């Protein structure tokens, strides 16, 4: 007597019972796979943010010192524009301990013709930049010419396409790899292009003039501190030397994000554990009820020569098959939900969100299916033991 065909027939003979057990296991797999992918994506997003920021300190005008809104620009891609004298970058280099100072200029576009919403335009100086340039170099082999732009991965503009910003035609020359941060929705250009765009914005009534009336403006300076210097000391020196400028330590920004991430991770993990415990208890109860229902069936099998071990194995195999079906179904459903609605999840969480590599995801999926099989088999172990010890005579006499 072969166990596998018999187990499959048993499962097919009771479609309602099988469906209920598969559904329960699918629920387990869905919670584990979905929760794990979200947590891993948040962690990958945080690592990406750390790598992407690259700088130790960011100088912004005091008026923009609302660090929260500055943080939102990175995390959620909200637009913002604030300006200070372009000389700040050179002055910062005079502070002991400052190795590099890369200026950036921000401009929030009007409703761009591509998107119906504002997009953040960031002007960089390719010669001085050390934060965005390495990322651009991965996608763009040549130089970024005047009126050329590099778009974040979430701006759906193909290479060679023309996008209009303040009625200026800008050519897309490259698209950046995903970072999971708000920078994915930004558009990058060089400082000459930015000057043209600022002038065009001025003509449209969007002023970027600072109190001194100077036209040469920047929005932020990214500072790299020399090795051996204490970042906090340099931070204090910068704040002391530069007037109307606030120095923000990137570490404090990342720590804030990291704390939020830890909170979300804890909540998701706790929910997953609770779902697992509840589902395991329900599975245990379901298999206990199955024992009562199938006592006569197993008694007959014993009478026609099936050994105890064989009956135990058969019961375990049936539950493992339910676990396999449920694991695959639950993982598949979770994958559809998590991957299809990734943009929605990202915007709801408001945290850097970047999927881990395909290898990690496949491993996670395989692990979830194996875990579903194991839990299903474990929940049925007691039932399998009871069923394998059925006394045929007694069971059939009692009519159970």
């Amino acid at each position, binding site marked *: 007597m072969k166990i596998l065909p018999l187990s499959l027939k048993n499962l097919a003979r009771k479609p309602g019972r099988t469906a209920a057990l598969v559904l329960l296991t699918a629920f387990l797999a869905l919670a584990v796979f979905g929760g794990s992918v979200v947590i891993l994506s948040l962690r990958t997003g945080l690592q990406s943010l750390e790598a992407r920021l690259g700088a130790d300190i960011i100088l912004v005008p005091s008026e923009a010192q609302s660090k929260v809104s500055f943080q939102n620009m990175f995390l959620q891609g909200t637009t913002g524009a604030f300006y200070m004298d372009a000389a700040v970058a050179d002055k910062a280099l005079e502070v002991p301990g400052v190795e590099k100072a890369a200026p950036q200029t921000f401009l929030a576009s009007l409703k761009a013709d591509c998107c119906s919403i504002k997009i953040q335009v960031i002007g960089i100086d390719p010669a001085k930049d050390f934060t965005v340039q390495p990322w651009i170099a991965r996608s763009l082999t040549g130089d970024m010419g005047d009126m050329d732009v590099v778009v974040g991965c979430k701006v*759906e503009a193909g290479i060679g396409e023309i996008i209009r910003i303040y009625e200026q035609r800008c050519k897309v020359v490259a698209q950046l790899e995903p970072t999971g941060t708000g920078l994915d929705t930004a558009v990058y250009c060089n400082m000459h292009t930015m000057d043209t765009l600022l002038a065009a914005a001025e003509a449209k009534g969007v002023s970027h003039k600072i109190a001194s009336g100077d036209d040469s403006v920047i929005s932020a300076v990214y500072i790299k501190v020399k090795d051996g210097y204490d970042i906090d000391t340099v931070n204090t020196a910068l704040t002391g030397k530069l007037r109307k400028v606030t120095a923000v330590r990137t570490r404090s920004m990342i720590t804030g994000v990291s704390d939020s991430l830890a909170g979300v991770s804890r909540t998701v993990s706790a929910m997953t554990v609770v779902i697992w415990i509840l589902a395991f208890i329900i599975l245990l109860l379901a298999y206990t009820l199955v024992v009562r229902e199938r006592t006569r069936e197993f008694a007959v099998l014993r009478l026609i020569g099936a050994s105890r071990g064989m009956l135990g194995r058969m019961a375990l195999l049936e539950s493992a098959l339910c676990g396999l079906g449920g694991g695959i179904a639950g993982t598949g459903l979770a994958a559809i939900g998590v991957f*299809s609605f990734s943009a*929605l999840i990202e915007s709801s969480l408001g945290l850097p969100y970047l999927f881990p590599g395909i290898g990690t995801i496949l491993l996670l999926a395989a692990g979830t299916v194996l875990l579903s099989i194991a839990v299903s088999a474990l929940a049925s172990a007691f039932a399998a033991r009871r069923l394998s010890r059925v006394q045929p005579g007694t069971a059939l006499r009692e009519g159970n």
Partner: protein
Amino acid sequence: MKKQIIPGYAVFVLALAISVGSVSFLGPCVHEDGTVGACHWASRALLGLGMLLSVLAMLAVLLRGARLGLYLAMCLSSILGILTPGTLISLCKMSSMHCRAVMQPAMTILFAAAGLAALCGAVICFREKKERA
């Protein structure tokens, strides 16, 4: 015979969700200035396809003789529905926008489910027809 009409009811429910969703919570981006983008027209096309699917599904429940053909028509309509947002009618160019983050994936899933249900219906009809023959 009962087996043949269950997929019809399933497609009908999904088609209703598509029709209602495409103009409400699963709909296009809402612009503050009242203008409409390409995604607005994509949602109108989805509404039409949803209504077409619901009529086909009802006909499949009511008309015994034409079920196989109706189910096949529903499969093709579902493929059209999957292709409509993003491929046949463009959407906004920022993937974080509502039409790309919600409308497109939700409609793809709903149309795929409707297409699968219709395919099941077609297979059931084909098998029963073959058995009768």
